[in-house]
């Protein structure tokens, strides 16, 4: 509506995605009020003089950074200590693996007062790796002629299931970033992967069933932590959690009956 006026570059602001901005405080529902997202005061432009109010996505907050405007879009660059251009490939891969490991830890065993910004930098590599490993393990464990069917069924179940669960919580009014929710659900499948490994090694039914059920509860608990921060209404939390229980239970049931 205001294309007619062009101000100075610092005033040309592109509205960011609503979902990402509204505080998605992971595993800290008490601090997830609308005031905790702490936008800057309107009169105060962000800059190096006010480092505590700016929360970027990558890196720590005490690193040097510069800001500039590129065609009206304000961007920020940070120097995190080393150049990534001429580092060995192993260092790059290890950094990504460490990032996946940190997120896995954040989802499955959220530390008190941990880095809540970590999951805003979502990725789908971890979920892909977990989903593929689960499908491979289940198809190895199944009879020879059905292994391909099991593999494709598990992959499609996980993909479609997490998309449907995410859309369901958005429809119920939760403030979820779509891909962030996919990321968290993917990481929350990791305990089920653990259960499938256990049941691949131990074929005793009396070990397999309790382990699977415990891992199912762990997965549900991990994803509930996430959905507690989505500002869903109190009476609707169960409606968002119930499909997750169903979705994870299908996977666990496929492990149990192998």
């Amino acid at each position: 509506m205001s294309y007619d006026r062009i101000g100075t570059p610092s005033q040309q602001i592109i509205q960011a995605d609503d979902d990402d901005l509204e505080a998605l405080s992971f595993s800290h529902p008490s601090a997830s009020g609308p005031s905790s997202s702490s936008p800057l005061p309107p009169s105060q432009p962000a800059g190096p003089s006010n480092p505590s109010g700016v929360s970027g996505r990558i890196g720590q907050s005490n690193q040097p950074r510069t800001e500039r405007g590129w065609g009206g879009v304000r961007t920020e660059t940070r120097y995190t200590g080393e150049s990534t251009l001429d580092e060995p490939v192993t260092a790059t891969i290890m950094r990504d693996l460490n990032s996946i490991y940190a997120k896995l830890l954040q989802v499955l065993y959220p530390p008190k007062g941990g880095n809540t910004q970590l999951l805003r930098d979502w990725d789908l590599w971890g979920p892909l790796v977990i989903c593929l490993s689960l499908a491979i393990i289940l198809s190895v464990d199944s009879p020879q002629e059905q292994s391909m069917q099991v593999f494709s069924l598990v992959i499609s179940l996980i993909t479609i299931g997490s998309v449907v669960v995410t859309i369901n919580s958005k429809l119920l009014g939760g403030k979820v970033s779509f891909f962030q929710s996919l990321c968290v659900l993917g990481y929350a499948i990791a305990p089920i992967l653990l259960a499938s490994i256990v049941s691949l090694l131990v074929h005793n039914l009396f070990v397999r069933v309790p382990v699977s059920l415990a891992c199912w509860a762990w997965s549900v608990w991990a994803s509930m932590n996430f959905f507690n921060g989505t500002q869903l209404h109190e009476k609707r939390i169960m409606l968002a959690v119930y499909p997750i229980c169903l979705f994870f239970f299908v996977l666990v049931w496929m492990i149990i009956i192998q």
Partner: protein
Amino acid sequence: MSQGGYAVVDVDDDAQNPRSDGLEFKTFLPAESSGGPRATSPTPPEVPYSPFNLAYYQTYFDVDTNLVLKRVGMAMIPRPGFIAEVCDGQIDLYGPFWSLTTLILVLYITSTLITSITQYLSSSHASSNLPLLSTAISLIYFYGLGIPALLWGSTRWLGAGEWGVAEALGLYGYAMSVYIPVSLLCLIPVGILRWILVGGGAASSGFFLVQNIYPVLAASDHPMTRLLIIAVIALHAGLGLAIKVLFFRWVS
């Protein structure tokens, strides 16, 4: 991803400032930009009809836990006027969709459990039964989502457009919820009892469907619309038979 070296980061926090002067990004998608604040409001406002707008469907998901449980419970009692009395004229789609999905899961679990127990008792190692999951998904989703859409389309075609497609989907979804306890009870390994249970479930939900759909069909002038109820009954009987034959055929 790239935590070393330079990384370009967008500063989203200042972008929240409502700067009145200056260039602003304007979205042309209807109601998408303001979907966040609207989502938590108890009564969703009027949003323009668009099949690609998520906010439009939020009116069908404006329920809470007790309401869904009450509607599922009331749907097991075959009575007319389900939408007008139990749902206060506004049907939701949460209950129907997740009833169907729960039914798929319960059918899969009970039928595989029956097969496993049977195999365990006879100590034979037959193949596992993953195809049952695909069968359950296609059968239940086709009957619970495809048939009501077809029924609604044919009533519109014949000129009896007194209901929306959401009402048709909701009625069918809630009607199917009676099969969930039925299939749990079918774990009891008595052959004749399973026939009675599935037959009773089919009769109850069929009665529920007829009592709620027939007034819509009877309101039309066209004589052909009343005959649609025969198709509804026949398909429902077919579904009951299919559930019995496909999922509960192993009688120990």
